[in-house]
C-alpha cells in the first residue's frame, strides 16, 4: 500500500463523506436535516396555530427571531430532566422501545434518493423496503405502551394497533399503485418516469396516500393514539426526560420520511434539477425534493389549527370503508393507465 | 288553570292526606310526618312535581330535632312558578327517614349529601357513602350546630 500522505487521507475522507452512501442518509435528506426540520416544524406548528388563534405563540426565547429556538429549549430541558423508570414498568423494553422506534423512523433515509444517481442503497425494491420499515414503527410504539404497564398506556398501545390496521393497507396500496403505474419499484426510476407529476397521473392514489400519511403520523384530525383528552398521553404516559423527547419527535420524523416519499412518488421528486449545482456536487441538487416535502409538512401541521379529533371507530370505519376501496380503485386506475401506456 | 286555582287544588289534595298545608308567596308548604312522607311524595309526583330541587337538613339543637326540607319543582307551564316544600322533623339522636329514590330518581345524590352533612340515614338508598367530604372523614357530620368551626375573632358580635 503506498504511503498515505496528509492530502491523500483528507481527500479519502472527503470522498467518503461526500459519497452518496454517507452524505444522503446522514446530512442532506437524512439525519441532520431531519433534526433541523424537527425543530423548525414544531416551532412552525405552534406559531401557525397561534396565528390562527389570535395570539403570538413562543416568542421570548429568541426575541428578534420570533422564538425559533423554542424547540431547542424544550429539547434541552428534556435532556436534563430526571428520567424516571417506574417500578411497575418492565425495565429493559421500557428503555429500548423508544430507541428502537427512533431508529426505525431514521432507517428509511438509507433508501430515499435525493438526486438522480445519488442514492445510498441502489435497489429495485427501495419503495417496498421504505414502506416496510415505516410500518414497523407501530410495533415499537405498542411495545412502549405495553412496557410502561399503565392503564392509559395499554389503552394507547391498543389504539396504535387499531390505527395501524386502518392506515397500513391504504398507504401500501396507494404506493404500490404508483409503482404499478411507473412499472418500477425503485424510487429513483419512479422520478425519471414522471413526465407529469404523479399527482395528476393518478389523483386518487395521491389523495389516499395523503390521508394514510396523516393517519400514520398521528396528526390531527387523526390524533387518536396520544388522545390527550381520553388517555393522557397514550403510550408516552410514563415517559419523562429525553426518552419522551424521542417519543414526541418520532411522529414528526415519521411524517418527514413519509412526506419525502410522497413528494418523490407524486410531486415528481427533485425534477427541476439545478444543473450547475448538480455538476458541482450532486448531493445538494435535490433541494427541490426537500422544499416540496417541507411545504407539505407545513400544510399537514396546519391541520392542527382547524380540526378536532375523530373517534377511534370513525377513523377505522373511514380507513376501511372509504380509503381502502379508494386505494383499490387507484390500483385499477394505474393498471388502466399502464395498459394505455401513458407513462 | 291559572296559578291561583292550581294552588287551591294542591291545597285540597294535601289536606285530604291529613297533613298541615300553608301557602306562602308561590310556595306550598306541607308539614308532614315521617310516616306520611311517602304518601305526600307520591301525591306530589302525580300532581306534576316530577323532580326534586333540594333535600336540606336544618339542625334545631334547642328542641332536639333535625328538620329535613324537600323542595320539589315542575317544568310544565302551569306549575312552573310554584315550589312544593315538604318539611319533616326527625329526632336528632337517631335521624332515620325513608328513601324517596323510586319516587324522585334525582334524590340519590341529594340524600347522600344530607346523610353526609347531617347524619340523616335514608333507608333504602343503595349506596349511602361520602359524596363531598373526603372518604376518611371520621368526625361528626359537619353541618350540625355542635360541630364548631374556628370563629372570626376579628371583632365581637354586635348583638
Amino acid at each position: 500500500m503506498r504511503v498515505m500522505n496528509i492530502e491523500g487521507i483528507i481527500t479519502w475522507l472527503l470522498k467518503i463523506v461526500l459519497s452518496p452512501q454517507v452524505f444522503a442518509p446522514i446530512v442532506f435528506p437524512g439525519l441532520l436535516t431531519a433534526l433541523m426540520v424537527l425543530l423548525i416544524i414544531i416551532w412552525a406548528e405552534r406559531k401557525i396555530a397561534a396565528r390562527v388563534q389570535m395570539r403570538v405563540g413562543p416568542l421570548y426565547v429568541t426575541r428578534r427571531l420570533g422564538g425559533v429556538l423554542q424547540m431547542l429549549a424544550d429539547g434541552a430541558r428534556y435532556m436534563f430532566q430526571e428520567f424516571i423508570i417506574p417500578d411497575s414498568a418492565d425495565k429493559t423494553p421500557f428503555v429500548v422501545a423508544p430507541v428502537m422506534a427512533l431508529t426505525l423512523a431514521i432507517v428509511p433515509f438509507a433508501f430515499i434518493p435525493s438526486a438522480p444517481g445519488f442514492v445510498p442503497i441502489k435497489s429495485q425494491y427501495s419503495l417496498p423496503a421504505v414502506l416496510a420499515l415505516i410500518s414497523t414503527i407501530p410495533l415499537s410504539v405498542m411495545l412502549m405502551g405495553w412496557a410502561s404497564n399503565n392503564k392509559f398506556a395499554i389503552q394507547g398501545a391498543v389504539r396504535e394497533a387499531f390505527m395501524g390496521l386502518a392506515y397500513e393497507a391504504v398507504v401500501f396500496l396507494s404506493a404500490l399503485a404508483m409503482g404499478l403505474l411507473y412499472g418500477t419499484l425503485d424510487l429513483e426510476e419512479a422520478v425519471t418516469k414522471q413526465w407529469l407529476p404523479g399527482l395528476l397521473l393518478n389523483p386518487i392514489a395521491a389523495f389516499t396516500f395523503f390521508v394514510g400519511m396523516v393517519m400514520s403520523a398521528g396528526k390531527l384530525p387523526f390524533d387518536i393514539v396520544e388522545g390527550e383528552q381520553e388517555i393522557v398521553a397514550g403510550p408516552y404516559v410514563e415517559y419523562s426526560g429525553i426518552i419522551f423527547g424521542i417519543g414526541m419527535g418520532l411522529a414528526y420524523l415519521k411524517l418527514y420520511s413519509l412526506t419525502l416519499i410522497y413528494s418523490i412518488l407524486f410531486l415528481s421528486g427533485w425534477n427541476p434539477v439545478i444543473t450547475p449545482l448538480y455538476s458541482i456536487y450532486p448531493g445538494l441538487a435535490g433541494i427541490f425534493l426537500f422544499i416540496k416535502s417541507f411545504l407539505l409538512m407545513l400544510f399537514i401541521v396546519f391541520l392542527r389549527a382547524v380540526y378536532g379529533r375523530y373517534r377511534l371507530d370513525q377513523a377505522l370505519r373511514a380507513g376501511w370503508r372509504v380509503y381502502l376501496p379508494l386505494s383499490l380503485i387507484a390500483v385499477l386506475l394505474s393498471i388502466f393507465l399502464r395498459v394505455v401506456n401513458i407513462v | 288553570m291559572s296559578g291561583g286555582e292550581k294552588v287551591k287544588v294542591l291545597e285540597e289534595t294535601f289536606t285530604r292526606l291529613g297533613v298541615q298545608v300553608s301557602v306562602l308567596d308561590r310556595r306550598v308548604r306541607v308539614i308532614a310526618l315521617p310516616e306520611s312522607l311517602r304518601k305526600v311524595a307520591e301525591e306530589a309526583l302525580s300532581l306534576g312535581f316530577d323532580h326534586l330541587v333540594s333535600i336540606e337538613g336544618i339542625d334545631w339543637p334547642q328542641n332536639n330535632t333535625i328538620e329535613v326540607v324537600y323542595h320539589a319543582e315542575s317544568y310544565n307551564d302551569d306549575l312552573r312558578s310554584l315550589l312544593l316544600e315538604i318539611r319533616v322533623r326527625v329526632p336528632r339522636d337517631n335521624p332515620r327517614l325513608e328513601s324517596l329514590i323510586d319516587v324522585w330518581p334525582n334524590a340519590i345524590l341529594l340524600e347522600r349529601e344530607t346523610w353526609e352533612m347531617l347524619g340523616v340515614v335514608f333507608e333504602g338508598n343503595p349506596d349511602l357513602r361520602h359524596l363531598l367530604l373526603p372518604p376518611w372523614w371520621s368526625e361528626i357530620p359537619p353541618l350540625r350546630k355542635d360541630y364548631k368551626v374556628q370563629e372570626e375573632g376579628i371583632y365581637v358580635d354586635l348583638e
Partner: protein
Amino acid sequence: MSTSSENGVVYSRLIAKEGDESIYELFIGPQHPSSGHMRFIVRLEGDIIVSVDPDIGYVHRTMEKLAEGREVIKAIPLLERMTIIDSHNVTLGLVLALEKLLDVEAPPRAQYLRVLLSEINRISSHLYGLGIAGIMLNHSTMFMWAFGDREVWIQLAEDLTGARLTHTYSVPGGVRRDMPQAFPERAEKAIRYMERRLKDYMEIFLDNPQVRSRYEGVGVLKKSEASRLGIVGPNLRASGVKYDARLAEGYAAYPDLEFEIPMREDGDCLARMQVRVEEIRQSMSLIRQVIKKLPQGPIFAEKYTRLLPPAIRQQVAQTGQVKFPGIFASLKLPEGDAVSRVEMGHGEIFYHVTGAGSTKPYRLRVVTPSFRNVILFRYLMPGHRFMDFPAIYGSLDYFPPEGDR
C-alpha cells in the same frame, strides 16, 4: 346489582361484579386533561362504557357551613366564589332571598343594571363552556377563540363594576355602581364584534364536519328523562323542555323585557352547543334593550340611603358609587325563611335562607346547577364509546367548584 324503576329510568347500573375480567376500570382522576377538578370511575367493556361513577368533592370549600358563621353581607363575596365565571348570577339569587327576608325593594334602575350584568356574565359563562367543549375535542382553536372573545365581555364587566370576575355587584337593596358614561357605545361595539364572531364559531366548530360527526347523536338526553332527573340550563332546553327560571320567577327587570327561550328537540351534544350559541344572541339583544330602556333614578334602596348622613348621600348621588350605611355591618335577619331561583349560565340556582333573628343566617342552603347536572354523568354515559366521554363532558358545561360548593 342492577335496579331500575318502572318508568324506564335506570338509576343505578353497577353491573360489574368483583373479579369480572371483562370490565376495565379507568380512573379519570382529579389530574386528567378531560376531567377538570373531579374524578370519574369509568368502567369499560371493550370500548363501551358500562358505568360512570362521578366522585366529586375535590373542591368542596364548605360554603354553607362558613356562611352560617359570618354576617349576612359577608356571605355574598363568599358564595360568589362558587362560580367565578358567572359570579353575578350566583350572588343575585342570594340577594333576592335576602331582600325577601329583609323586605326591601331595589329601585327600577338597579333592577335593569342587575339584568345588564347578569346577561354579560351569562355570555362569558357560555363562552367559557364553548371553550372547554372545544378543548375536549382537542380543537384548540375553538378554545382560544372562545377564551379570547370572553375577554371582551370581561372587559365590559370590568368597566361596569371594576372587577374582572368577582364583581359583588348586587347587595340587598340595589347595586353598588352606576353605569359609566361611555358604557353604551362600548357595549354596542362589543355586541357587533360578537355577532360577527359567532358566525366564525359556527363555521370552524359547530358546522365543521369533523366536530359534527363527534357531536351528532351523542349523549342524547330524552325529554322525559331530562325533566325526571331535574336537569337544568341549556342541557334541559336542548332536550325540548321550555323552562327558564327567568320566566318562572320573573325576578329583576325580566318581566318587562322581551326575550325568547332557545330550544332544540333532539337533546344531543350538538343541540346543547347550539342552544348555548343561541342564548348568547338572546343575551346580546337583552343588553341592547336594557341600555335603551334604562330608567333614571337612584340605584340604592331609599330605606338604606335614608340612614346615610346627608353629605355622603349627596356624594353617592353624584358619583354613582354607593356607600353602605353602618347598619349593613350587622343586618339582623328576622325569623322565617325565603326561597329564590335564578337562571345562571349553567342553569337554575336555588337558595333557601333561614333567618333566626341574629346577624348570622341560621341555615343557608344553595343547590347549584352543576350539582343538579352531576346525575347526568351516571345516566348519559353508559352505552357510549369511551372516546365519547370527553365530548359529552364538554357539552354538559359542568363546572366542578360550583358542583361541590
